[in-house]
């Protein structure tokens, strides 16, 4: 049995310790906001926060979050986070599959640095792949959420 805090509540799960956290989130807890993209931690679609740090949940083994705090996109609420509102205002997605991972990285950045400049936003999001070509809109949205004028 592995115990950790998930979106603010204590949770236990009996899955095999080397099970990727992503499967546990999606299938044991029904939290479908983190998405499978590659299973190798290379695309960012599955990013969640562990102890406030954005990590790809597809190659994070369950045992490694024992006793830790995990937050998924569902745990950002209640209500849309300013990053999510800004993404919708900019219509910063096409297929949207990568976007919840981007949200988690952007939220972690703004928690650490509330008013980042553009170069910082680009650097923080560079681990995320977007195939539809919505990158510039996403950068604008994160800058908007961070209160930057342009």
């Amino acid at each position, binding site marked *: 049995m592995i115990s950790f805090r998930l979106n603010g509540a204590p949770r236990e799960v009996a899955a095999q310790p080397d099970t990727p956290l992503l499967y546990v989130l999606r299938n044991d807890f*029904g939290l*479908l906001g983190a998405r499978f993209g590659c299973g190798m931690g290379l695309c960012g679609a599955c990013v969640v926060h562990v102890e406030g740090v954005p990590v790809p949940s597809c190659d994070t083994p369950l045992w490694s979050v024992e006793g830790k705090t995990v937050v998924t996109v569902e745990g950002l609420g209640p209500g849309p986070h300013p990053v999510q509102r800004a993404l919708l205002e900019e*219509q910063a997605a096409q297929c949207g*599959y990568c976007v919840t991972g981007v949200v988690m990285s952007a939220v972690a950045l703004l928690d650490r640095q509330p008013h980042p400049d553009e170069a910082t936003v680009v650097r923080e999001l560079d681990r995320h792949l977007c195939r539809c070509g919505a*990158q510039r809109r996403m950068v604008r949205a994160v800058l908007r959420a961070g209160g930057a004028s342009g």
Partner: protein
Amino acid sequence: MAELPRNLAANPTLSRWIRVAGDGAVEVHVGKVELGQGILTALAQIAADELDVDPAHIRMVPAGPGGPDEGLTAGSLSVQDTGPALRLAAANVRSRFVAEAARRWAVDPAALSVAHGQITGPDTTIGYGHLAAHVDLDVPADPEVPVKDADKLAWTGRDVPRLDLPDKVLGRPRYITDLRLPGQLFGRVVRPPSPAARLVALDPAAPAGEGMTLVRDGSFLGVVGADEAAVVRAAEAVRAGATWHERDTLPDEDDLDTYLRAGPHESTVVVHDGAPVPAGHRRLSATYSRPFVAHASMAPSCAVALWHGPDRVEVWSHSQGVYPLGRAIAAALRLDQAAVRVRHAEGAGCYGHNAADDAAFDAVLLARAVPGRPVQLLWSRQDELSWAPFGSAMTADVTATLDAGGRLSSWQYDLFSQGHTARPGYAGTPGLLAATTLAEPAVYPAAVDPPAAAGHGSLRNALPGYDLPARRVTGHRLLATPIRSSAMRSLGAYLNVFAIESFLDEAALAAGRDPLDLRLDQLSDPRGRRVLETAAKAAGWGRPLPDGRGLGLGYARYKGRGAYCAVVAEVEAETEIRVRRLTVAVDVGRVVNPDGVRNQIEGGAVQSTSWTLLERVRFDRRRVTSVDWEAYPILRFSRTPEVAVTIVDGGGAPSVGAGEAAQGPTAGAIGNAVAAAVGVRVRDLPLTTEAVVAAIDRPAR
């Protein structure tokens, strides 16, 4: 007598398109599917206009049984083909509701008005919902019902926010991978290690594991179980216990030019004006190429299947065509067509014929082993990048002459390519991957090309849109496709436009002319001229730039009859090629959703930048080797250019699609900007640092 628009003529019953519930809820069913392009929002706007309801109050129902069969969602045709059909269907529905209200109130229908789904008469108001039980929509559409004039449309032309994005941004279940049906199991397929591999033996000591169902049919192997992570582990155990016979069947990745030219081919002449090449004119030749390119969508393909007894199956798929897919599955399994019901569920971005249909057939095969239980099948990233069809490698030879005034006086073009479609149903076959590995394997012919009437495949945009005399344009399609190829966004247009636009700049250089002047001099189409002039002006064409930077132009009208698009790229060549900015002008005729058009053009331009700078499918003589994001890199945030889009007024011309307009012109613009920046021409894509250095080192031709 007026005629129904084609898609409505094929599906004339109104209730196939639109249903109204007693509470006033309006459901719109279209055969087109959401691929990440925002089509359902644009079509909701069209329906909203004619129904006089708000788009937010319309529920766009995913394509499936009961809705209209509109074939594929492909070719940038959804607004163009579905728009008029849905518009007339919606006008019919409105008219029938108004007629019912007028009958009740014994007034002239012309005296009634409709707003927000409420019909208002001289004395009172009634909602669609109150009349729904009394209005029969199981009737054919009447082509004589008038649609609104363009200047009366409340929603067309507005930036209506995407209806599907809130779910996707907030992380609510929306994608096919999020489906969790009662009793649902998970499945994985163990694909062969290489395209020609056949299963020789399966170690009986490597069973799938407790609670797992092993599925084997010939060389098709899969595992089904209740715990997804355990299924993944079991599939790996099965893979480890499988012995395959493999063969080398792939061409040399470093000599695709020879491979593409070797044939045998089927040759198609697009145009042959016949005029002799004028004597004494200066002759120029060049060859351009691209490698195989992957769809590389962010999610691997997924499907859910559920068998109801031995001869009826229900399927959920992110296919581009749920009806063609259903027919293909039925054909592959020799089932009655009505026994296979496929409905659409949204997946990650779709840029053409990816593995969605193959995954659906995989799910059907796996679920057949557990009738009554839905099985959700997901491909791996590695399988997605190696087994999904690719956009074909292509090579194009251009030879042209310049007259004394620096005008192009003849044009010869020869294109070598694999075919660009192997979709379900192509060449009369099901075209589903797993069928080729079953105990009774299907043998499919090479990928084919859509006909001229459908805008060609390899030869899409091979005919330049410029005023050129003495043209001969010929395509040579390979009759074998050892590397699976099929439709990928813009098909042949990407390389053809890259080749044409690159060559125009080479001709301008040879003639000592400005590339914009040369183009405008031989382009009489006023809409084409306008996008070129608009993009050039917006980008500051002709302005001086520091060393190592350059501007380049690209232009095409997609398929010769779709959207006009011109792109100016500004690149910087330092340690790598960096596209700083893309300035785009586009004319798509009447615009339904301007921000939707901008988003599609931005996305198309950025994706094309990725293809152009980075992408190349890698393989050895046996198997594809670029199976993850390190071996198949795509454009990242840090290299993504800003894209500035100007929508040029189409002067009331009918709407055409925007999703594939920017790819070719962007590639041409980047290639030309690189040439302007570094002073040498790179003719083989992608424009990697190595390719640019090799071009600099190449002896001058």
